């Protein structure tokens, strides 16, 4: 699923900054080893936004954690594959080297900003901390930079709020603080793990705007982890759809939206409410995502797939390329289309 | 269904606990040698306490000045031509330390057990009242709890024993006075949580009386955390009895408790180390066993963790 460069995308694409090859992540549980990520491949180019789309438990957050070097261990373990940042494999470098990547080159914004900020430290301290620790800035200089960063993420009267504690901020404001914190060291890559899920719809839009503007200013690449196909459609240049620890379809956002070629992606598209079908019942994908301790053989989606055949039940599908950039891991990728 | 339907097909009262029986607990205990040792030690101690006169090799009061301060582990003394063996030595008056320890166990265990029962009954009752009725009763009980918690227990105990004198009965009463709040606070918290639960609300909705709700629905559900607390408090009261008796405010002569034995032995610490060491070791092993048992009870009765231990 590694498409060649093409000129049809909206932005001029930069060089590949991150390349994930055949990533495998295992978790030890009382019921045995669970493979949370089973051979994921994706890459990320400078200045673009890649959305990783999937339900909870599909492995999308674990892939973000794996890239960040944050897979909780134990019980988790990266059991195979590589995460290449430039020519360095982040899976194999030492913890000490990884800490020079975290924050400096790849930064992360988390889902629930309120609990993801330290309640006992002022937001100014938390934003300035990487500058103080990693760049050796003085307290005063770091504080000044913290205020500038807060202004950059449009927190009003930043100079007064810099000494406030997280509980004095609303959810949306907390998320802005998180973003300011992530921007402190000018990372090349920002991983945003469901950055707006916990927020009101209007605040969601503001945060998304903010991320888009910041991306334009800094040229950083964004990996957006989301379960919301609408968010992905709005923000992403490319989309990778995850199901049961595997990427089942990936490609430019237009291809995924208008020419989905995996039954699961089609199911997701069908479950979006639209204005035209206001009075119809929403369609849903029958069944539930698999329990990760008992992923079905063959194509993991087959129990829920209307088109499933014996082939699907026994053979794990390889990626079929519909265009150089658009791949689908379905035996019948060329035939399935959205009605 | 026919008349031969096996009993297991009938719905059980509590599905969650349906399959866990005493057998599972016993099996889990057998798998944990430390806990098993603790339980065996406590059982042996209980037997010693109950059957002390039959188990003790000698009369614990039998003095023999000539055979005093004999060292363990084994000493022979000829008493009126008859050779006697003393496995844990003799004290300053030639009394058998082992027998005295066994009789001491009787006093220490009895005081602690009765103390726990009395303070527990008082505390649980007040906690139930406070938690169940709330409002002013709750206010009053919790104020008293806070007040008693703020004053060091040892100080209250010493003062009360100073006024009323030591002895078995007064010790038990003092324990009730200084420990009831622990039970009251815990019971109240547990009841408060339960009171709002759908289970109690539905019991109320079908018209259960208060006493039925308390005895059938609340008490069974708070029994296991209370059991853990009782075990921990038992250990604590054994220590407290020892300390008060050591200071001369608890068990009075001629009764021998472990604390008093240490108190007397202290005078001979230079010549007879075992007179201080052995009773203290008895206390230590008893409370250690109780604490280990409490930890184990806590894990096996925890609804989240217990499947791992019991299955």
């Amino acid at each position, binding site marked *: 699923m590694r498409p060649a460069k093409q000129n049809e995308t909206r932005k001029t694409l930069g060089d590949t900054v991150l390349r994930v090859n055949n990533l495998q992540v295992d978790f030890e549980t009382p019921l045995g080893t669970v493979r949370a990520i089973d051979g994921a491949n994706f890459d990320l180019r400078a200045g673009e936004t890649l959305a990783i789309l999937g339900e909870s438990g599909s492995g999308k957050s674990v892939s973000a954690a794996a890239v960040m070097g944050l897979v909780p261990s134990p019980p988790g373990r990266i059991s195979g594959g590589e995460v290449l940042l430039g020519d360095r494999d982040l899976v194999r470098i030492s913890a000490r080297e990884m800490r020079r990547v975290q*924050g400096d080159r790849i930064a992360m914004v988390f889902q629930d900003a309120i609990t993801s900020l330290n309640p006992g430290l002022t937001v100014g301290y938390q934003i300035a901390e990487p500058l103080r620790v990693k760049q050796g800035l003085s307290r005063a200089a770091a504080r000044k930079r913290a205020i500038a960063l807060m202004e950059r993420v449009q927190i009003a009267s930043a100079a007064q709020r810099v000494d406030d*504690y997280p509980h004095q901020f609303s959810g949306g404001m907390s998320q802005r603080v998180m973003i300011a914190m992530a921007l402190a060291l000018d990372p090349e890559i920002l991983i945003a793990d469901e950055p707006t899920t916990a927020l009101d719809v209007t605040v969601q839009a503001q945060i998304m705007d903010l991320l888009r503007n910041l991306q334009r200013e800094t040229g950083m690449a964004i990996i957006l982890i989301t379960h919301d196909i609408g968010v992905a459609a709005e923000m992403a240049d490319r989309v990778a759809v995850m199901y049961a620890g595997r990427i089942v379809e990936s490609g430019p956002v237009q291809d995924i939206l208008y020419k989905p070629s995996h039954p699961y992606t089609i199911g997701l598209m069908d479950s979006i409410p639209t204005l035209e079908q206001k009075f119809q019942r929403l369609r849903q994908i029958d069944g539930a995502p698999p329990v990760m301790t008992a992923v079905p053989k063959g194509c993991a989606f087959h129990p829920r797939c209307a088109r499933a055949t014996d082939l699907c039940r026994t053979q794990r599908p390889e990626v079929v390329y519909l265009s150089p950039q658009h791949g689908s891991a379905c035996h019948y990728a060329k035939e399935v289309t959205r009605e | 269904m026919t008349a031969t339907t096996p009993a297991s097909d009938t719905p059980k009262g509590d599905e969650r606990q349906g399959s866990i029986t005493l057998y599972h607990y016993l099996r889990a205990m057998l798998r944990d040698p430390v806990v098993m040792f603790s339980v065996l030690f406590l059982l042996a101690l209980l037997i010693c306490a109950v059957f002390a006169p039959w188990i003790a090799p000698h009369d614990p009061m039998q003095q023999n000045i000539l055979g005093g301060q004999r060292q363990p582990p084994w000493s022979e003394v000829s008493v009126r031509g008859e050779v006697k063996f003393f496995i844990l030595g003799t004290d300053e008056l030639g009394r058998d330390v082992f027998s005295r320890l066994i009789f001491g166990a009787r006093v220490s265990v009895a005081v602690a057990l009765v103390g726990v029962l009395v303070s527990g009954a008082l505390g649980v009752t007040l906690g139930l009242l406070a938690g169940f009725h709330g409002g002013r009763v709750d206010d009053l009980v919790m104020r008293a709890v806070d007040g008693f918690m*703020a004053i060091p227990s*040892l100080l209250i105990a*010493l003062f009360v024993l100073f*006024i009323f004198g030591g002895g078995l009965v007064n010790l038990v009463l003092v324990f009730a006075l200084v420990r009831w709040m622990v039970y009251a606070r815990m019971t109240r918290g547990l009841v408060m949580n339960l009171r709002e639960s759908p289970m109690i609300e539905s019991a109320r909705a079908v018209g259960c009386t208060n006493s039925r709700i308390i005895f059938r629905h609340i008490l069974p559900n708070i029994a296991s955390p209370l059991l853990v607390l009782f075990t921990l408090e038992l250990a604590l009261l054994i220590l407290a009895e*020892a300390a008060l008796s050591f200071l001369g405010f608890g068990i009075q002569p001629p009764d021998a408790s472990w604390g008093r034995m*240490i108190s007397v032995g202290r005078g001979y610490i230079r010549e007879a*180390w075992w007179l201080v060491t052995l009773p203290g070791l008895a206390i230590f092993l008893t409370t250690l066993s109780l604490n280990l048992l409490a930890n184990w009870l806590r894990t096996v009765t925890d609804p989240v963790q217990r499947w791992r231990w019991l299955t």
Partner: protein
Amino acid sequence: MFRYILRRLLQSAILLFIVLSVVFVAGRSIGDPAILILGAEADAASVLQLRTNLGLEDPMLTQYLRFLGDALRGDLGATYRYGMSRGELGGGLPEGRAALPLVVERLPATFYLAGVAIAIAMIVAIPAGILAAMYPRSLLDRAINVISLAGVSVVEFWLALMLVLIFAVTLGWLPTSGYGGIAYVILPAMALAFRSIGRMAQITRSAMLDELAKPYIITARAKGLSPARVSLVHALKNASVPIVTISGDEIATILTGVIIIEFIFSWPGIGQITLDALSRRDLPIVQASIFVLVLIVLIVNLLVDLAYVILNPRIRLR
């Protein structure tokens, strides 16, 4: 916040009042002070004389109000025994020194011993608990489990006697008892600190583990901070609330545990004079020591509450 402090102060004052009243009422029941002072063989005339002088012939309510009034001025009566002298109380009857100063002048010795014990406990337990949380299942982690289990299972006075037996009697390294410099304070302080070490280490460990499992720790790690910084700055800042609370509890525990330890080591502190007064039935000294000890524990509790408020921005800034 100030209203909160005011309310706590008021509660403490009420509690002290109740304690004093109970002590007064109960104290009347241990026997006639005049006989306690003069001895059982004293003649009836001097007993009556002394009773009149002490105001014991007045109605109970008058006596109680006088007791409370005196107590407000810091007068908790005069000792029946310590440093008795033939005074001007009348009729050449003996007069004791005021009880409260007698007790208060024992405080430095008690604070010295308790202070060393608390310092030992905190210096050992808190770092040990933090390290155990940072390295779960390590040797240190298991050692803390064993020590705290032993700590709650061992009785202080026996531990003290065992320390004396080993380090003083057998090895002869340290004195068996008495008041003085470092050599004298080591054994009693260790005996006092042992229980607290186990409990404090355990609480510190579980408070740190609780904090280390929270989402903000992942944020801190995602910033590329060192494990030491994540634990010691991010987690410890929030774990400090339970750690301070348990430290306060342990200070209060050590301040009462000191009673027995002082008795064993003949340490001339407040515990020793309290036990002494109890066995000699010297009621004014008993009253004064109870008053002083309860007051100290209340102050410690108040300080802990204050620290709790200060350490917790969510409460402080409301």
